[in-house]
């Protein structure tokens, strides 16, 4: 026991001596490092952004959610349409009768510009997201360039479409009804649905493509130019991906509707004419 006490006492004396010396200023030094936590936080804030919040979020989403989300969209949506096509089938209208001139040449050209560039955006976007399947490198870099140019084209055309169609695309009360009956697509019955020149589905697609497109353009700009701070980039990437998935889904719906669900819809955007009989059913409120 003594063996412990004696050195213990000495140690205690030495320690208290040291402490006294420190207090009395005999060692007028403050050398022991101060807690660095605050410094570390500052360092983080200066150059890595708030990784805990956005960095982690981005990493998790990018690693798990986004590839799966997009995979889901490009698989599930076509499957649903396929089932719909089989179960309900396309709407067929007699395209004889009176023809109504709906889309002038300018609108058609702009629409097809938008359509083409958007398709490219979808393709290249998917290519970037799933680049590992294509070995990356030159293909990926090319995809990014094409994505940029398509984005520029699309931004331009979408803006023009916005100007041309904005009046027709304003929401109306009957749109709610249209939404409730899902535009009549779940039944084979040909009954007039409540819709103006554009139905609620088209309006949704339109607003997503223009307003959403604007958001995509802004976030895309950040991602491409790497301007803004790192948290802005992370948020941009997250928004770009989520919105991208939504637009992809709408895009697929639009393609299905025009190509398959309504026979002849494609033709109307090429010629500009729609049959009156079709309009009576699908766009009864359209005052042409």
């Amino acid at each position: 026991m003594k063996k412990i006490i004696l050195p213990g006492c000495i140690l205690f004396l030495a320690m208290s001596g040291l402490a006294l010396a420190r207090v009395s200023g005999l060692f007028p030094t403050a050398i022991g490092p101060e807690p660095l936590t605050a410094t570390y936080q500052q360092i983080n804030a200066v150059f890595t952004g708030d990784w805990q919040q956005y960095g982690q979020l981005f990493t998790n989403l990018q690693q798990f959610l986004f590839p799966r989300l997009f995979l889901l969209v490009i698989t599930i949506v076509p499957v649903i349409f396929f089932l719909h096509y089989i179960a309900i089938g396309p709407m067929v209208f007699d395209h004889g009768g009176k023809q109504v001139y709906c889309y002038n040449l300018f609108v058609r050209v702009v629409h097809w510009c938008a359509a083409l560039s958007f398709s490219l955006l979808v393709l290249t976007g998917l290519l970037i997201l799933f680049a590992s399947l294509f070995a990356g490198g030159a293909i990926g870099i090319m995809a990014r360039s094409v994505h940029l140019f398509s984005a520029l084209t699309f931004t331009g055309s979408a803006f023009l479409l916005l100007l041309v169609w904005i009046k027709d695309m304003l929401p109306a009360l009957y749109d709610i009804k249209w939404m409730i009956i899902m535009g009549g697509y779940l039944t084979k019955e040909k009954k007039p649905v409540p819709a103006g020149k554009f139905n609620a589905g088209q309006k949704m697609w339109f607003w997503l493509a223009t307003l959403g497109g604007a958001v995509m353009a802004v976030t895309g700009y950040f991602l491409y130019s790497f301007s803004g701070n790192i948290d802005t980039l992370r948020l941009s990437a997250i928004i770009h991906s989520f919105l991208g998935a939504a637009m992809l889904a709408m895009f697929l719906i639009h393609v299905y509707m025009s190509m398959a669900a309504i026979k002849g819809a494609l033709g109307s955007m090429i010629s500009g004419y729609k049959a009156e009989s079709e309009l009576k059913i699908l766009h009864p409120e359209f005052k042409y």
Partner: protein
Amino acid sequence: MAQRKIRSSLSVGTKTSRVTLNPKVARRSFLKLSAATAALTGAVMTTKMTAKAATPAAAKAAYPESKMVRSICTHCAVGCGIEAEVRNGVWIRQEVAQDHPVSRGGYCCKGASAIDMVTSEKRLKSPMKRVNGKWQKISWDTAMGEIAAKLTAIRDNDGPDALHLNGSAKVSTEMAYLQRKFAAFWGSNNVDHQARI
């Protein structure tokens, strides 16, 4: 929560198959750093460092036919050592001068780019002279001939003290000595260098 997710996931992310993208990588990755680590440490680790430096890790060199030349950094007066790796008369890279007793391999940014003193594209390429306000390239012979002639003329007309020589603290001690000796043989005390300021 998110943190956990990342960690659990990342074991998937680091696929072992990727490590062997190139069989060489896998082999190299087993090399344990030797001289390296201890070197960074300070005096306390020197014994460890020298003991480990003998491991066969450094068996292969990037430039087997090169030779090492030792010099001293030309920036400040600390006098850090420079280990220059030279191949076929070209300074290919600057090595860490780990053994130097003062710097122990350390450099500031100036010393770390010592090689740039030789490779900088801003280095002068030939003697030059201003003619009508424009720089003109001339040969060494012309330059030295003209300078010597002008100096002699000034000496004859105005005396040796009409020349001032600003020497240098950046040349070797031998050259500094020659500069002072030159002034003495020229016949003037108008000689000085940066130590004055």
